[in-house]
């Protein structure tokens, strides 16, 4: 199975190890990974700021790069939600939007839904707090959000819970936003940071050693706050945990 790997711009630049971990996990489960080098970004920063005209060519570039792939996989729920649910706002007449959108998957849902993997082999003997990133949860339905009255499920949690020795800690607020929100992090700096600090406090009081998420952007924000406060918390993308699950020491995100 050939997978076009989409590595969001900020992961490409700042968190290459998360991209490498994604490759490792995909290949371990039999996917042939191809990374088309013409890719840049999904266009979300511009689109979410209301700058439609600046976002459109970036979305178009994404389609040009990825239209020929059977599957597109990215280690980011937010960027996948952009492609799947919001490209049609930018390119309403482009027939490739539906085609590419329906073939683009977030890493965890690709593992559980397409590769039909029930559990990942490996161990991760640590206390982990799962940060349910909003777009993965509420736009892609990687799990049941706390607001919805339906049967609970959570694809990210399911993959992590299968690891030996892992202890998923119980948070007071299971899916409150961390406050990253793209340009919101800067435009509403005070609220954004306060939201993030509150999330960190919740994980800390739940006894988490590691905060895990399927979205690196949330972790970039939370990690930035944690480092400034010198909090002894490690922040890891789920792909890193899955890739490293045979090792015993978690390597923190730099």
């Amino acid at each position, binding site marked *: 199975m050939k997978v076009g790997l989409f590595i969001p711009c900020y992961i490409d630049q700042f968190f290459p190890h998360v991209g490498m971990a994604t490759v490792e996990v995909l290949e371990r489960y039999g996917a042939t990974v191809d990374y088309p080098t013409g890719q840049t970004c999904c266009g979300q920063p511009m689109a979410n700021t209301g700058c439609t005209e600046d976002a459109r060519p970036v979305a178009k570039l994404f389609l040009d790069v990825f239209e020929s792939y059977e599957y597109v996989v990215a280690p980011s729920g937010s960027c996948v939600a952009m492609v799947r649910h919001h490209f049609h706002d930018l390119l309403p007449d482009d027939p490739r939007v539906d085609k590419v959108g329906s073939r683009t998957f977030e890493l965890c849902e690709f593992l559980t839904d397409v590769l039909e993997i029930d559990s990942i082999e490996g161990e991760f003997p640590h206390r982990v707090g799962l940060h349910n990133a909003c777009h993965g949860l509420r736009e892609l339905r990687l799990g049941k959000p706390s607001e919805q*009255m339906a049967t609970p499920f959570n694809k990210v949690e399911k993959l992590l819970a299968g690891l030996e020795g892992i202890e998923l800690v119980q948070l007071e607020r299971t899916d409150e936003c961390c406050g990253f929100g793209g340009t919101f992090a800067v435009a*509403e700096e*005070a*609220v954004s940071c306060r939201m993030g600090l509150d999330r960190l406090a919740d994980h800390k009081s739940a006894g988490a050693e590691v905060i895990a998420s399927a979205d690196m952007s949330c972790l970039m924000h939370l990690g930035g706050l944690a480092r400034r406060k010198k909090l002894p918390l490690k922040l890891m993308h789920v792909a890193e945990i899955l890739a490293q699950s045979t090792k015993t020491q978690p390597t923190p995100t730099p």
Partner: protein
Amino acid sequence: MSHATAAAEFIADAERTKWHDETIFFVRKKRDLAAASVPEWELLRETASQIKRHTLSRLDEYLEQFEANAIRHGIKVHWARNGKEHNEIVLGLLKERDVNLLVKSKSMLTEECGLNPFLEAAGIEVVDTDLGERIVQMRHEHPSHIVLPAIHIKKQEVGQLFHDQLGTEAGASDPDYLTEAARNHLRDKLISAGAGLTGVNFGIAETGGIVVCTNEGNADLGTALPPLHIASMGLEKLIPRLDHLGVFLRLLARSATGQPITAYSSHFHTPREGQEMHIVLVDNGRSGMMGQSEFNRALNCIRCGACLNTCPVYRRSGGHSYHATVAGPIGSVINPARDPEKFESLPFACSLCGSCTEVCPVKIPLHHQLLAMRHELGKRHLLPMAKTVPMKVAGAVLRRPWLYRTMGKLGRVSLRWLPRFLIYNPLNVWGRQRDLPEAPKESFRQAYKKRAPQARSDQEKSN
């Protein structure tokens, strides 16, 4: 003042922010429990949404039906194009009957129209009889929440306010004691008022009657005593049939406060003997919103406040930071829909987490509307340069892979080599409270290029 600036001022008081957030999140948790007690909750939401959308699609017919049936039952119906007309109609009714004291139950519409200051300027005393609204009125403030108007005020502050204005004991903060004092104070006003004004939660086209939901019974008392009842009603409050009411009553209080139903759901279908009853139907921008296909679903709103309670931004910035009658996610849609220039910062007071959309009992896709509103502001050239210029640059870079690679490398090298004080300069808003990620030597694409041939051959071998 932009929302961000007002929010930063609110957050500067860390203790108060924590208290505000936790108090309101507690209401959200009560909502979750109440919703979970109804097995068909999601079906109810869908049904309510469809009833509202249907009603709005034929609003003209239903309004005429409502008016005809109300008139048939002896109710007088007035039409107001805007807040000014509404206020003048109300003043006219009061003046004709020499009313100099008006008691009001909760009505966000009269807040929207600025009725209180208008009537006060004309020499009429107006007393809000909802406890929370009375508290904010005594403080010369506006409600900070559509359901819990005084949620931003601590009980100790209410104690001080009542001590100053109602003569309660100094330092008293017992809610029962303070409520009793308010009750006695309000009872005097209720007995001597010449007219009672209520809001409207639901107008029923089929019957021409209205339903008012309160927890304090103040709408009942305020209309049972005076000889004149005025009901102010937004055009969008209509539902077609009495049968539909149950759907909304089951959703409203559960979504708002986690109660199964409001303590009082009072039906007014005809004037009491010896009383006059008037309904003022107010447009004030609503029909304009109906024409905006992207945003007209916001007219589904039944003003339960669930989106405010769940909003992580609202809880940490307070209702007054929105500088609008209706705060929170729904306010950030309807205010800029009416006046985009004045409220341009509100659609950005949102991290797009989507929690509001999930709790909304009438399924308004709030966070998608907020996003659509940002695009609308962009289209109308109402975005500030602080947003458009960086995005123009980002767009120009990201549409050109070679430029993106070059700029990426340049950025990483600068971050690696520049001294900390240069990186964390006053213009670096990200860096005020947060560290930037450490810039790696290689981007992913560089690392992947190096690794790729080896890995590819490994994989070929294993296949």
